[in-house]
């Protein structure tokens, strides 16, 4: 693309979902005017458009909203401020120099951005990624796809349903399908504990007498055209199926709620380094990635439990981008944060540590009455006591300013 066809912009935000919209609004409020949000759908809102259940916004707004209402709060602000949003537009490439290619019906454009905000969200793990044995009939859907068909596209894909995975979307779909007249036979979870939030187990499963079987998984898919049934097996502590425990369950639909993966293909093209644990970018407390001027927040960084925290993280990101634009760069985070005993991952993974900052983390298994601690060279730099810690929930830990460049270990005891 020749130079004269290149547009410039201060901040280009990739994705107009909860993270992108919240970042845009806060950036505007901080005085940044030259913002472009690029959204592939015909309207902003991201995944919230199909999450019609309520429960969003309790932390951020102090009231319980449906997904579309939660998104509308930010969309209204974006419109009021006149922030530019390109809809029906897909980013096809980002370079390490922050040159962004956008394809839309109106044409292909290239943008040179001072800062790029990655807010692409995540995708669902599929049947193929799990490599569940059997044939490939219709009727096997990820929970999000079933949700889109039912809530956005007015298409009914299910009657007799088995759900694999106790992720939140899967449980929410159990209730949704039940309200739409489908029969949800059971939810099977391979882990010995549920992977979604306790409230969803109560109000999506227990309320409708849908049984949840822990330490179980689907070991075979049956049907050469349409799904006819699944074989379910118990698993041992290493999550391997136990021979002799197989049970055939007839069903026409298998819903998978087996994990979300941050959507970082564009980030990789831009040279952003990813953390194999979060599958999102390595960032410092300013949410800057390994490529200067490229920032990330929301589910593209790591999968969140609640959208409220996505918005709040994106707002923190906006503060950092504001500083970056004013100063031309941000100090590099030189202190490494490591996930110690009982901790699956931390965000950020690096810190400058001049100011106090918050680390968010997830634990590897459910635990009661624990201390969550951060330690640098023998000194506790942050700790909190928790009555219970669940892998389903993100834990926020405040960390005091750091001295030196020694690693900070975050652990549970």
């Amino acid at each position: 693309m020749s130079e004269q066809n290149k547009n410039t912009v201060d901040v280009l935000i990739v994705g107009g979902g909860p993270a992108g919209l919240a970042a845009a609004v806060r950036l505007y409020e901080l005085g940044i005017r030259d913002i472009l949000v690029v959204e592939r759908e015909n309207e902003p809102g991201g995944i919230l458009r199909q999450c019609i259940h309520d429960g969003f916004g309790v932390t951020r707004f102090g009231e319980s909203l449906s997904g579309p209402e939660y998104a509308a709060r930010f969309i209204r602000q974006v419109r009021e401020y006149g922030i530019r949003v390109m809809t029906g537009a897909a980013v096809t490439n980002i370079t390490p120099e922050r040159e962004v290619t956008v394809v839309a019906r109106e044409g292909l454009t290239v943008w040179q951005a001072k800062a790029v905000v990655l807010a692409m969200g995540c995708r669902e793990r599929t049947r193929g990624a799990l490599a569940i044995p059997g044939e490939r009939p219709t009727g096997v859907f990820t929970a999000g796809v079933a949700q889109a068909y039912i809530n956005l596209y007015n298409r009914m894909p299910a009657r007799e349903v088995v759900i694999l995975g106790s992720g939140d979307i899967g449980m929410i779909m159990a209730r949704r399908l039940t309200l739409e007249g489908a029969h949800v036979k059971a939810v099977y979870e391979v882990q010995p504990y549920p992977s979604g939030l306790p409230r969803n187990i109560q109000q999506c499963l227990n309320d409708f007498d849908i049984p949840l079987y822990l330490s179980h998984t689907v070991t075979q898919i049956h049907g050469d055209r349409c799904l006819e049934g699944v074989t379910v097996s118990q698993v041992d502590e290493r999550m391997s199926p136990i021979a002799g425990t197989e049970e055939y369950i007839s069903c026409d639909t298998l819903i998978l709620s087996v994990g979300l993966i941050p959507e970082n293909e564009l980030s990789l093209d831009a040279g952003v380094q990813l953390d194999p644990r979060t599958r999102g970018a390595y960032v410092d407390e300013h949410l800057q990635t390994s490529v200067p001027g490229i920032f990330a927040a929301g589910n593209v960084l790591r999968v969140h439990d609640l959208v409220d925290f996505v918005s709040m993280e994106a707002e923190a990101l906006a503060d950092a981008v504001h500083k970056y634009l004013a100063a031309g760069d941000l100090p590099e985070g030189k202190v490494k944060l490591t996930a110690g005993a009982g901790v699956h991952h931390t965000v950020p993974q690096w810190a400058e540590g001049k100011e106090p900052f918050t680390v968010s983390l997830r634990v590897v298994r459910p635990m009661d009455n624990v201390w969550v601690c951060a330690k640098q060279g023998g000194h506790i730099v942050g700790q909190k006591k928790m009555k219970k810690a669940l892998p389903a929930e993100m834990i926020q830990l405040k960390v005091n300013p750091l001295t030196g460049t020694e690693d900070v270990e975050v652990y549970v005891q």
Partner: protein
Amino acid sequence: MFDVLIIGGGVIGSAIARELGRYRLKVGVLEKNTDVCYETSGRNTGVCHGGFAYDRGSLKAKLCVEGNRIMGEVARELDFPLKRCGKVLVGNTQEEYDRLQEVIAQGEANGATGLRMITEEELKAMIPGVKGSFAMLSENSGILDPFLMTIALAENAVHNGAEYFLEHEVTAISREDDTYVVTAGGETFRTRWVINSAGLGCGKISDMLGIKGYKLIYSKDDYIILDDRLGRDLPMPIYTVPSNTYMGIHVTPTTDGNVLLGPTAEDTDNNSWYGVEQKNLDYLYEEAMKLWPNFTRGDYIRTYCGILPKWVDDEGRIQDYKIEILDDIAPNAVNLVGMESPGLTASVAIARYVIDMMQEREKFEENPDFDPIRKGIERFSRLDEETQARLVEENPDYGELICRCQKVTKAELLQAIHNPLGVHTVTGVKYRTRAMMGRCQGGYCQMRITRMLEEELGIAPEEITYAREGSRMFFGKVREV
């Protein structure tokens, strides 16, 4: 009344249909499935073989070498992806070294060229991370897109006048005077010539023709597909040292950059069960790790299974291709039995061989209007940004990316939905465009694609067919409004 009816629209049937377009003949193709590559032709490794792995003097060897030789020209004419990237057979022991020497000698006797031994250093310089102490390199081997090759042959056949009858399974064949009466999909067809290129169904059709006694076994191959980021570091297929009947498990890049692990090759008497088995998935992981440990289970995006028909003798030994016209039992019927690997590579050579046999009995008049050229759907994702910008300007549908991970535009999907064969399935769109073939497996785009199918074809949600006949996707609408 047809001059030639071809039973089976796989890669061989479609190659025959295409090559018959060179003559003034009325050609029909009866295909039992909803598209042309739902069985063996679409379910394989997509390798263009060199021809060294088959017995000296066999039809398999001869037609494979010839098919490989002409593949470049065929791919250019028909616009399907072919990469002559070469391939290696890696070994570690003296026994394997000796065996590879034999393979080279056998290959050269078969007429294959570009075969040589390479050292460990050469091997590792060519393929980062490969395991092996030495290898045989076959320079002329390559990879191709088996779906697009079959579709291209079929579309070019249709362009030159052949008629495809999808969802027409042959249920009876009889001979009345000098014509065959073929019942398929509840309809009756009359033809002067009939060709059995039914692939997995070759035994059944052979029996219907009165040619009895072929013993067939089926070899079931499970595969794993890896994310298309991995193909960037795999320039060519990696094979183990083969026997003449089993190529061993291999690690193969596709023309789209995915990596295939497989096949497992298990004998079965079931030629229609396409289930992938856990034990095979575990085995593929173990074996592929021994060749190319550059992947993890996190790179899996899909699994699949293919089945090959193999003609065996009474002792169960796999036989060569059988391509015959038995004038006394079934005159004007070409019977193809045991058309397994390297059928994809050899398909056009097989077609020409078949037509030569037919012409020994009847001289066909040349068709001066034959057009060997077929243009595929332009892949937006493969174009440079200048060309992409121009396309979007000319047609805004190119500016609408429907499948994000494979970067497939609405313009491409519309062409695929309105394809020349009249295929109306979801996988028909998938194989023609690569939409839904990426790492999210349609998580983002399948809703849009099924809606486009409904709108473009004017059909109800219940009528959307995923792949095989009867594979419905929806029970209807959530609300009738």
